[in-house]
């Protein structure tokens, strides 16, 4: 173990907060490195003096670690635990090292140091902004073979995982009075204040440890304690409170309507061997009374030539690596700044024994205190100077410095370069909440302006720089949040005294000297999308004046880091090129997610069986036992057919169809929608909702009903039974159950609110077993009690209540097959028992169970329509040959006016007819087009809606919607297919038992 400690050349003894004894190891591009527990991959790599970690997206330029946080644009690695757990594009600056972690660099081939794609860097004049739009215009032929493969190849970094994700992701909805986003001093103070006042608080922070800027700022004291330690103690104190939920490693990624905020918690991403059952990540969907946004600020880089060389980092990042991780970013570190805070980083590094050859400051004048401190430490400060360019390729080797206005250059050797152009307040969450930012010209930054939701920004994200003021602001916000959300807030004193704290004075936005307009240098604005200052000027020059257009043309800020570093620089350069002020150019919109969110977290539990509910009927297990093959109908599993040994689907369906007509068959109809319509006005309501007359339907009678929409087209159909004067049992199609109930409820509440009637779904109350065929009565008779089954007492289309197999039943004499038969409704929990009992008898009598396919064939043999198959939303009852079901004397029903529209009564409408193939063999394709002239295939006059082989008819049968179909009986029409044209004859849509006598048997 100690061997690894020795090979971490940049680890500085006595610095940082990690424990030297807690050694661990990981691999990067196959090589093993030592690390300390608590390291990020980035801090561990820098400890090992590795800065080169990847190649850039477009130019394949060598890239290193720039930041120490989630804003990292460059250091995106593939992170793996094992073969099945590989995730691309993980920021090395947020991924904690665990024992056995495998990290791989991306976008390079064959190796990180020798990357063939580097040719793009040389060819960069051809790859400037907008080159996609210009280059891939023509010739058209080049698209498939050249351009598209090229673009696809160039799109995206890293490789998508090839294996199914073996881990589980959890989800949790949560509510709180106060959600605090960010666990720096502002968030902690606000959370504690609100919690002490009695508010239910959730506080989250994306880092493993709370404390925000105290990760690097070691000068500040809070209540006499070092800031970072105070933060840990405060977070622990919050954790112990019953009304507080403290979520570390948790990123607030999206702020949605009505204070609904999405958080993702990385539960085991830092653990070497996650405990079984622990989710990998957890999605929190939080509804908060008030949101306190304490998201801090993000340091910006300086825009100068070759500012992307590995070893060039943000000053605060270098300070974090030193003060938190005990890692120096180099041995001889140059400093380039427009801001005070870089000095503090330089001072800390110098005190830790790192050489600081110079601090280069673009400002002419600086705080004398800083100047004297630098002098004391022996650091040369070059004010009014600029770093014109960085030297080196795989690692920065020097900085070329000259006076900001030009002049002679001096080259200063460095092995790392830290920079700061100032701090950008993190207004992402505020902006996502639809809040409007306002520009503060004095400090060159956008700050929260007009609030759209109940939230408050506090601390650095609100532009509050001073530590004492931040605390004051946070305590006030915490107190007010509790007042606003808790009925009786408690008075709780909370004193937070601070000493010291970061000076964030000074800043610059836009290109630094040496990268001004006219200079042909690569001064990167957006590292991740390889956008340079020149690209942005080019966009303006080419006529893109809106910042939204500039953004899309250059792709500035469109990478996964969402321009956390680049947006302000890009905007400033565009503004300068346009000759406008920054606020006139405007800011692009911040969108969720703040940082990338895994699909796993979004999908969470909804995988495999939980992807979508699978609904099974009460009889399902018996059907499985009978060997049924199932089909999906909506969310339902329905028995499709029941093949016996040696049968394929065709032979099984033929047998089932024959058996029903010759003997008896059983069918599970439980999925039918059922609605109980109850109340003194039930009949009146039914009369209005259906085209058929219902006022005079007798108790114990059934009626086939058609329901239209207002426009007169068929919406649903089903058989309706009158249970009592004030009670109807309505059935709907399987797929129509929920929408028909909603449709009825809509009309009841909006059009007919005066009717005294209520609707209740009973779809799942009743299991439905259809027993159909000549022997149906004989089969059920022995099991029925209290119902006279004779034709006289219970004729076709009538019903009775009684008992079957010892349980309550609503027994309906009806038929969707054309045979005499019953639909037996029994309470669902008894469905399987009744089915099994009847099936034994059916089987003994030579009958069989039949599935949905046979049911479809049997009904088509009789010309019974299926709504949604033989109708398409433009078919009226008359078109479907069901004009008899429209009450002639009715004065009103839903659709009555629609049906009178001229178009709906005009000649030549498509009408439902039968088709027979003239060769008596060819089964038509459902959906096939029909033409009148065999020579003219492009003039469609209709289409095939249902088509089957009918074993009972001994021929193919089909239903079709054909223009003027009713007047075409006997006509020959044509169905053109890719390989031939099938001749068909128009006929009535009834193929067996044309006079319909069998149902009465």
């Amino acid at each position, binding site marked *: 173990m100690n061997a690894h400690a020795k090979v971490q050349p940049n680890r500085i003894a006595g610095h940082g907060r990690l424990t030297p004894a807690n050694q661990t190891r990981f691999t990067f591009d196959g090589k093993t490195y030592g690390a300390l527990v608590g390291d990020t991959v980035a801090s561990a790599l820098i400890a090992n003096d590795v800065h080169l970690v990847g190649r850039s997206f477009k130019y394949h330029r060598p890239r290193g670690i720039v930041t120490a946080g989630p804003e990292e644009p460059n250091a995106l690695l593939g992170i793996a635990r094992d073969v099945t757990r590989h995730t691309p594009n993980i920021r090395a600056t947020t991924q904690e090292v665990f024992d056995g972690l495998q990290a791989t660099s991306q976008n390079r081939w064959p190796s990180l140091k020798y990357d063939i794609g580097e040719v793009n860097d040389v060819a960069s004049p051809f790859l400037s902004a907008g080159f996609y739009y210009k280059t891939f215009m023509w010739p058209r032929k080049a698209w498939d073979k050249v351009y598209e493969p090229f673009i696809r190849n160039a799109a995206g970094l890293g490789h998508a995982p090839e294996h199914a994700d073996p881990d*589980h992701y*959890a*989800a*949790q*909805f*949560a*509510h709180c009075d106060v959600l605090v986003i960010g666990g720096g001093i502002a968030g902690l103070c606000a959370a504690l204040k609100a919690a002490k006042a009695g508010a*239910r608080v959730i506080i989250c922070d994306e880092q493993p440890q709370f404390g925000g800027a105290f990760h690097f700022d070691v000068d500040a004291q809070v209540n006499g304690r070092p800031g970072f330690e105070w933060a840990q103690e405060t977070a622990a104190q919050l954790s112990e409170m019953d009304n507080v939920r403290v979520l570390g490693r948790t990123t607030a990624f999206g702020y949605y309507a009505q204070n609904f905020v999405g958080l993702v918690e990385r539960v085991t991403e830092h653990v070497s061997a996650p405990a079984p*059952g*622990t*989710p990998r990540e957890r999605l929190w*969907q939080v*509804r908060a009374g008030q949101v306190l946004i304490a998201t801090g600020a993000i340091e910006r880089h300086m825009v100068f030539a070759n500012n992307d060389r590995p070893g060039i980092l943000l000053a605060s990042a270098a300070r974090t690596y030193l003060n938190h991780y005990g890692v120096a970013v180099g041995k001889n570190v140059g400093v380039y700044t427009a801001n005070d805070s870089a000095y503090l980083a330089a001072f800390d590094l110098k005190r830790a024994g790192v050489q600081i050859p110079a601090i280069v400051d673009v400002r002419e004048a600086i705080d004398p205190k800083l100047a004297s401190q630098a002098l004391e430490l022996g650091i040369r400060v070059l004010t009014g100077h600029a770093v014109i360019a960085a030297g080196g390729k795989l690692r920065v080797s020097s900085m070329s410095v000259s006076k900001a206005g030009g002049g002679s250059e001096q080259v200063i050797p460095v092995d790392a370069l830290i920079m700061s152009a100032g701090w950008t307040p993190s207004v992402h969450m505020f902006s996502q909440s639809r809040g409007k930012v306002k520009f503060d010209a004095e400090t060159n930054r956008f700050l929260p302006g007009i609030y759209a939701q109940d939230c408050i920004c506090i601390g650095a994200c609100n532009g509050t720089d001073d530590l004492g003021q931040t605390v004051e602001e946070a305590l006030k916000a915490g107190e007010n949040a509790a007042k606003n959300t808790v009925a009786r807030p408690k008075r709780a004193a909370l004193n937070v005294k601070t000493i010291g704290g970061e000076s964030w004075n000074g800043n610059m936005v836009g290109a630094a000297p040496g990268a001004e307009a006219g200079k042909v240098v690569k001064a990167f604005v957006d590292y991740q999308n390889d956008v340079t200052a020149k690209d942005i000027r080019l966009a303006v020059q080419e006529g893109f004046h809106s910042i939204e257009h500039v953004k899309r043309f250059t792709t500035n800020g469109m990478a996964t880091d969402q321009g956390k570093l680049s947006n302000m620089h890009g905007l400033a350069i565009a503004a300068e090129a346009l000759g406008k002020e920054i606020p006139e150019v405007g800011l692009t919109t911040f969108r969720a997610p703040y940082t990338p969110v895994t699909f796993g977290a979004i999908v969470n*539990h*909804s995988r495999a*069986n*939980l992807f*979508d*509910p*699978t*609904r*099974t*009927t*009460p009889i399902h297990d018996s059907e499985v036992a009978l060997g049924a093959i199932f089909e999906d109908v909506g969310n*339902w599993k329905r028995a499709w057919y029941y093949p016996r040994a040696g049968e394929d689907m065709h032979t099984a369906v033929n047998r089932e169809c024959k058996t029903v007509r010759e003997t008896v068959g059983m069918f599970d109809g439980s999925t039918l929608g059922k609605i*109980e319509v*109850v*109340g*003194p006005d039930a009949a009146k309501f039914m009369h209005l909702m259906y085209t058929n007359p219902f006022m005079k339907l007798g108790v114990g009678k059934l009626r086939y009903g058609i329901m239209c929409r207002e426009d007169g087209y068929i919406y649903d159909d089903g058989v309706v039974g009158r249970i009592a004067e004030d009670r109807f049992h309505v059935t709907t199609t399987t797929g129509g159950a929920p929408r028909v109930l909603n449709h009825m409820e809509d009309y009841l509440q909006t059009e007919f609110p005066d009717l*005294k*009637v*209520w609707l*209740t*779904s*009973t*779809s*799942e*109350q*009743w299991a439905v077993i259809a027993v159909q065929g000549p022997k149906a009565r004989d089969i059920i008779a*022995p*099991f029925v*009690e209290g119902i006279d089954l004779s034709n006289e007492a219970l004729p076709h289309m009538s019903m009775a209540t009684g*008992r079957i*197999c*010892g*349980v309550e039943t609503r027994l309906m004499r009806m038929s969707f097959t054309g045979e005499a038969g019953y639909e037996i409704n029994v*309470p*669902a*929990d*008894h469905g*399987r*028992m009744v089915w099994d*009992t009847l099936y034994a008898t059916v089987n003994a009598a030579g009958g069989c169970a039949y599935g949905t396919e046979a049911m479809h064939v049997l009904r088509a043999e009789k010309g019974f329509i299926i709504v949604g198959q033989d109708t398409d939303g433009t078919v009226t009852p008359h078109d479907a040959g069901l004009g008899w079901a429209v009450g002639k004397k009715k004065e009103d029903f839903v659709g009555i006016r629609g049906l009178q529209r001229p178009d709906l009564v005009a000649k030549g409408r498509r009408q439902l007819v039968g088709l027979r193939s003239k060769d008596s063999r060819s089964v038509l394709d459902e959906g096939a087009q029909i033409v009148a002239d065999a020579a003219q295939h492009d003039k469609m006059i209709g289409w095939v809606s249902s088509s089957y082989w009918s074993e009972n008819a001994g021929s193919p049968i089909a239903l079709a919607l054909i223009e003027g179909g009713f007047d075409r009986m006997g006509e020959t029409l044509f169905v053109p297919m890719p390989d031939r044209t099938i001749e068909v004859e128009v006929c009535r849509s009834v193929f067996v038992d044309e006079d319909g006598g069998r149902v009465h048997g």
Partner: protein
Amino acid sequence: MAKAAIKAMDATRVHPLAGQSFGGPNVSIAPAPEAYRCSLRADARAVPSLSKALGIKLPRSAKQSITAADRSALWLGPDEWLIIDTHVDPLDDLSKVRVLHSAVDISHRNTALLVKGPRAADVINAGCPQDLSLAAFPVGACSRTILGKIEVVLLRTDVDAFRVEVWRSFSAYAFELLSTAASHN
């Protein structure tokens, strides 16, 4: 067949989740015992008569339920209640009521899961967006709400216990979602 044979038939109800249960240290999930259920619809005027017939005072405001002995009445809407009784069919009591109402037997349409234990609320919150804190959803609170991709009626029967009423064919989904959430907490 002789009627005696019919009598011998097994008319006991089969719960769709019969035999399934989940037991963990912090939460247990099990099918509820069989029950009678009735969907009761009526205007406010009818409430006193219906309450009298049911022997239970129908709650009149949102999220409220009342339980007495084996019978519970859950407010689901301004004119809608779910009556659950583990022993006596509420429809029998309502059959004598003359006042205007609709009572529909849904004993078999719904089934129920009992979720118990210190993490019961968290497990339900894996798929249910309701605020289940005791302040917002006290013992006796009920709501027609969602659980993942399905509709459920949720009733808090105790500090750490919930009854999840669900349509029969969605019960397998409900059970799997809850037990998956419970085992990945």
